[in-house]
């Protein structure tokens, strides 16, 4: 199927290798999801959208554990990324997270809870206002959102709630990488008797207070979230701060 490209898309295509440019398309969801129309309306209504192979969403095609499905979004091939929305078409709560890579690469690794087989997508907004969309299907046996968190069965987490561990890598293949783990049950509110209780906001900044990335998290992010970021050049400590939907604050700083 061929779709006419807008001026913005033509301008973009001109800068890309021919194979990648050929894969750009404005309509006809490459993942063939019956929910794409609704997703577009919910998150990207009225704005220019391009299915773009430069937005890489990596996830296992079959998720062994629907409570902890690893997802890596890599949009570093795009220039001037301002915002990334991650959503899963068929999840009972579709929105997973948003991130704003203010001073770091447009790259984020995390884990999600999935209730059934679904596309997992990233919509990436560049400075020109165009949303570039990439994604992949994940098959799963389900139950990820309506199964209780581990914390629901073990109250020890209460002493460690919002405990943050951060580590940076300065050399080797993972140079410039930051990994962050936060203790939180991330309850979805879909389990009887367990109200929604999840992290809402995580901000990372460098020693001078310059923001690296802001992440807005929603219910489907997996319990005890682990995030992987590409900071780029490593320069000094990283400070992490944020809060959950009950107003619990956290703050942590880590040397390189």
């Amino acid at each position, binding site marked *: 199927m061929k779709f006419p490209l807008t001026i913005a898309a033509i301008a973009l295509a001109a800068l890309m290798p021919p194979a990648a440019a050929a894969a750009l398309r404005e309509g006809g969801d490459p993942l063939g999801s019956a929910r794409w129309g609704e997703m577009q309306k919910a998150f990207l209504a009225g704005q220019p959208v391009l299915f773009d192979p430069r937005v890489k969403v990596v996830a296992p095609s079959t998720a062994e554990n629907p409570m902890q499905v690893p997802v890596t979004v890599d949009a570093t091939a795009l220039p001037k990324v301002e915002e990334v929305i991650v959503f899963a078409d068929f999840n009972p709560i579709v929105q997973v997270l948003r991130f704003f890579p203010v001073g770091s690469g447009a790259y984020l690794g995390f884990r999600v809870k999935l209730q059934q087989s679904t596309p997992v997508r990233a919509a990436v907004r560049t400075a020109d206002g165009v949303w570039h969309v990439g994604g992949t299907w994940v098959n799963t046996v389900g139950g990820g959102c309506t199964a209780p968190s581990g914390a629901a069965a073990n109250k020890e987490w209460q002493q460690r709630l919002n405990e943050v561990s951060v580590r940076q890598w300065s050399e080797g293949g993972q140079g410039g990488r930051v*990994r962050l783990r936060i203790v939180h049950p991330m309850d979805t509110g879909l389990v009887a008797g367990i109200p929604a209780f999840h992290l809402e906001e995580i901000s990372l900044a460098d020693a001078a207070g310059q923001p690296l990335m802001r992440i807005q998290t929603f219910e489907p992010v997996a319990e005890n979230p*682990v995030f992987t970021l590409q900071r780029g050049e490593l320069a000094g400590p990283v400070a992490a701060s944020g809060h959950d939907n009950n107003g619990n604050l956290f703050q942590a700083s880590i040397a390189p």
Partner: protein
Amino acid sequence: MKYLPLSLLLFAGAVLAAAFDYRLQPRQVAPDVDVFIGRSEDFNTVNGGNIVNTAFIVAAQGVIVIDSGPSLRYGEQARRAIAGVTSRPVALVINTHHHPDHFLGNQAYAGTPIAALPGTIQGIAADGNAFAENLYRMSGDWLKGTEVVVPTQALAAGPYRVAGRQLELIALDGHTGADLAIYDVASGVLFAGDLVFNGRAPTTPHAEINHWLAALDQLEALTRRPGFTALVPGHGEVVRDAAPIRQTRAWLLWLQGSMKQAAEAGLDMNEVLARPLPPEFADLPVAASEYRRSVGHLFPAAEEAVLK
């Protein structure tokens, strides 16, 4: 469109398995000791969950069944196959641990005492239904009518006399929270349960690797006893030596080391999943799928250990 190939596959599986016959053939390991050997595969609708070894000892006063298989049908067919070998009644069923392929045949032994370690009994009571549901999803109608029967008799480590037979019960853990190995003194056969896999990558959903490694050392010591004749692993062929113990240990050590190394190097879970298997395990049956599962089971803890 996405679902069409899957439903076709399920349909084909159901046709192939129309008779739901596991074709259980008792294989003699020692006088009065027989095993049913399962396939070195993942659960699917063709094998109906028969990827497991179960065994029976024909003792003076009755038959001792070690693990009951993945379904009611398996249990019933095993019972018929046992009746083809001996007219003695089944005196006792033992479940070595709480994984579904080892206890879901319990239902076929109604009226017979079913015994297990206390941790196994708790595990079956707590998670049995979820396991059965999951196995049903993977193996289809082979599981029809299968219900969880929780063992009623708690076993403890040490010498154990049953049906006129002297057994030695070795209470271990590591593959799950409670793993029972059984040494049959008269035949010198060691039933290792799923602490030992032979020619198949081990499964790790409830594994505690350090405990498992310690358990393997204990089992290997048992194979050096003068009376030892055979090792029955939970999965894979029966052997006369400790080779599968070493193979299982090598896999676990590699897995543990590789999770630790990956976490220390700062890898994300998707990068760990994408790593190739080392050449020594590349040809091991179901190694790729078990590796993927094991990353999910074990990597978060390795990650937590370095993010401190």
